[in-house]
């Protein structure tokens, strides 16, 4: 009897400590996310896309809010990411096909070590849309993007209408783009 009470008491203490540590860390993460205006898990669709300013690999200033009025496909990728390299030619096609309707694809590279390697990749693959190397702030604003590719579909008013982590089928990507264009 006494042994059972001791086990129960010990278990409750261990679980309480786990709950306390877990919720405390989560609270800190959420506070930091709010401080930098970042997206939170489960609160992405319908939210205003966090604004950012980066320099593209060809030296232009890229400010997301300047693209208001266009549907934006914001694609996080890296040169070392094989699934990313599968969808990039699709994005090139979509930019050609839907650009006149107001579609703008934006690539955010998560490569480390400068933009030269990315610029060379962009040239070799014939990318026809804006690409910038992340300065380690944009992926944080979009919810600590770890899975590559991750793509956000943003409507003409700057609201996120869909997002996808990992590679989707070409038809799914096209569907999401059309949703963003139609809003």
């Amino acid at each position, binding site marked *: 009897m006494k042994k*059972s009470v001791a086990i*129960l008491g010990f278990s409750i203490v261990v679980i309480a400590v786990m709950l306390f*540590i877990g919720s405390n860390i989560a609270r800190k993460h959420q506070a930091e996310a709010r401080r930098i205006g970042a997206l939170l898990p489960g609160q992405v669709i319908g939210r205003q896309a966090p604004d950012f300013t980066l320099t593209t690999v060809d030296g232009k200033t890229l400010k997301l809010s300047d693209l208001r009025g266009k549907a934006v496909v914001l694609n996080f990728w890296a040169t070392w990411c094989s699934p990313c390299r599968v969808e990039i030619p699709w994005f090139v096609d979509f930019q050609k096909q839907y650009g006149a309707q107001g579609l703008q694809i934006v690539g955010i590279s998560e490569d480390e070590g400068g933009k030269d390697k990315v610029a060379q990749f962009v040239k070799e693959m014939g990318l026809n849309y804006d690409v910038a190397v992340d300065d380690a702030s944009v992926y944080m604003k979009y919810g600590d993007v770890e899975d590559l590719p991750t793509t956000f579909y943003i409507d003409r008013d700057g609201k996120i209408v869909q997002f996808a982590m990992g590679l989707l089928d070409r038809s799914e990507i096209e569907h999401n783009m059309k949703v963003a264009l139609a809003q």
Partner: protein
Amino acid sequence: MKMAAWVTLGIALLLPCAGWAQADFAAKQPSVKILNVESLPLQKGKAASVKLTFRVAPGFHVNSNHPNSEMLIPTVLKLDPPTDLSLGNIQYPDGQQLSFPFAPDEKLSVYTGDFAVSATARTVGSIRVGTYRVHGELKYQACDDHACYPPKSVPVAFDVNVANPPKAPKHNPAQSPNVHN
């Protein structure tokens, strides 16, 4: 209801809550871990090989040491031995040539499941007998069937037990053919 049953019920109800509180952080655990490494016995003036075994989590793969494209980030072991120990000749296994759903026509050279990397340890100079801790890290870049993850590293540490070489057996003096009683 007996107390033991209450204990079980209490734990069963609370444990999922505690697990949920940790879940956000567990999801970002590295997808490669090192399995237990045994201490390496090493005689002064000799060389010995250490084998480090790593386990890639199910559903993930990492690039081999020689990926099929120079764009891809290879798996590399870096060791930082203490003074008077050298560690070199790092040997990686050949990668498995596999295709994945994101590019079914392309073969990638990868490690999945368990893979072992070996290195050769040698003593240098007048090292003292004793146990020496070697630190290092395995750098890798993992993917699953749909996405890739930023490069990470897993820490590596093992002991090298340096001992004197066994003493050479003493030669017996020439035996007298005469029996002395």
